[in-house]
């Protein structure tokens, strides 16, 4: 029997979020028909990219009045409506701010199980894996019910193309009365790339000493196409906003490359970045936990090392 699977297609001004391709890869299966659910009305523009990754139907979700502006409650109700119409019983998404705001609402409305930040999903057995106790254990969960929702941790599943021919559909939902209103969307301090989705992160800790010194990390990040993160000490000191905090009480990240600069490597910090593919530590203290549990360590003063790294990366990445 065909299983209909919905995937929330998250987009930004630059198009589909790059980390989404891993999510689509995780949702595929021989008996799966994949529905990409799009809210920004640009389905047609995404057709080439989505069909290359195996999406069969691309659905523009709108109301009679047009595009649905960001309202997590209204988006959740629209999704429930679309799931019902297309007989979709399984939903996938990227574990992002938007998904964390919309998927739990859908799960609650459907009284369905939801697992966010999954590192693996097996739909045949209805099990999924995710970390628990701040990354100290990996749990295999068994889900029961009629609908299932999964948020995939960004960058943990290798995106693999699998071309099909996609069809673009439109779906009109009825707007029910809003329980909450979104008054405005403001600009917020911090990076333009979501920390959790960034393929490369360079992070600074107490050793940064002040807000201004973070400039050297931003310069390096720009060359790498990386996002900048921080330890809690740097956040509590007010040098950078909380949205940049990596760790147990900050963001959990799983980039391909994590460069920890002047971060000692407390359990709480490791909790947020231990699944990075490659960890680089730059620290004056060779005994620091981060130096003991990284892939590559450089013993040295970050104020010496980072500018050299930035300069060398510039030439190394330019003559690729």
């Amino acid at each position, binding site marked *: 029997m065909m299983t209909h699977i919905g995937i929330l297609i998250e987009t930004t001004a630059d198009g589909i979020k790059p980390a989404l391709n891993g999510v689509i890869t995780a949702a595929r299966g021989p008996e799966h028909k994949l529905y990409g659910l799009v809210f920004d009305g640009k389905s047609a523009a995404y057709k080439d990219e989505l069909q290359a990754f195996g999406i069969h139907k691309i659905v523009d979700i709108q109301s009679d009045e047009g595009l649905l502006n960001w309202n997590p409650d209204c988006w959740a109700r629209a999704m429930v409506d679309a799931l019902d119409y297309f007989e979709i019983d399984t939903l996938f998404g990227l574990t992002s701010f938007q998904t964390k705001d919309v998927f739990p609402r859908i799960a609650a409305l459907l009284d369905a199980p939801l697992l966010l930040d999954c590192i693996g999903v097996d739909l045949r057995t209805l099990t999924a894996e995710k970390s628990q106790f701040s990354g100290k254990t990996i749990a295999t969960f068994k889900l029961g019910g009629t609908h299932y929702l999964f948020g995939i941790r960004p960058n943990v599943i290798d995106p693999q193309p699998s071309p099909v021919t996609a069809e673009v559909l439109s779906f009109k939902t009825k707007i029910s009365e809003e329980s909450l209103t979104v008054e405005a969307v403001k600009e917020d301090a911090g990076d333009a790339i979501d920390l959790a989705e960034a393929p490369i992160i360079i992070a600074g800790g107490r050793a940064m000493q002040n807000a201004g010194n973070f400039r050297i990390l931003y310069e390096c990040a720009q060359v790498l196409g990386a996002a900048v993160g921080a330890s809690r000490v740097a956040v509590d000191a007010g040098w950078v906003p909380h949205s940049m905090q990596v760790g147990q009480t900050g963001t959990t990240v799983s980039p391909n490359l994590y460069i920890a600069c002047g971060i000692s490597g407390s*359990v709480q910090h490791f909790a947020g970045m231990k699944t990075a593919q490659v960890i680089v530590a730059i620290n004056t203290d060779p005994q620091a936990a981060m130096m003991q549990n990284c892939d590559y360590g*450089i013993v040295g003063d970050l104020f010496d090392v980072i500018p050299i790294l930035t300069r060398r990366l510039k030439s190394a990445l330019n003559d690729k």
Partner: protein
Amino acid sequence: MNVYVCIKHVPDTAAKITIIDNNRIDEKVTFIINPYDENAIEAASGLKRHITDAEIIAVTVGKASAEATLRSALAMGADRGILIRCERNPDSLVTARAIKAAIERDGKPDIIFAGNESIDSEGFQTPFRLGVAFNFPVASNVVSFKLEDRRVTVESKMNAGEMAVIRMPLPCIVGAGKALNQPRYPTLPDIMKARKKPIQTIDLDRLNLPTAAGSIQIDKLRPAVDQRHAKIIEGPPEAAVTELIRLLKEETRVI
């Protein structure tokens, strides 16, 4: 005004987790109040400074040992506590039903505070399930909060570099993010006073909860292996950086 705060009893962030029977942990470790729930209590206490008739009731679903965490909440400003006692930790579908049933028995909520996430199960969902159970609006991962004329205005992150300003009427549910406030730690007199504040205990089984359509169960638990073989790159900074870039490009191909 009835202000409820959902708090969870969780293993300390630094605790060493030992797995037993393949699917649960040895609970002989230090437990703490879930860090996000401290922000929830702080926000509730903030309300009490302006609204004199506000009563803050801390609610938890947990084992008998969770009483210790309720006492912490009482020391941080809650007036009384409700312990919904159970032998095994229920999933969030059941937890939300239990909290709803217990609150409903207790009084009429005007506002319910919770945390954005519990650091043990990392569910990110209980406040939303509570919202549907009560049919109250919910905003979570909230980083600013204001109450005026029975309307709540909050800010919550929606994307990188973007923050949504959300407005909802009371009664409603607010899930606290870490950046919402700075929890104040209780003083010794606060802790002494908390010992005398009342805690009511209800057995989960006595609540006759409606059954949930879905369930989330832990099947297996295994330790995360994360010991890496650190390779220290020797030499002066210039040489070390050159070698690092070579390794990242050629050995691990991450840049």
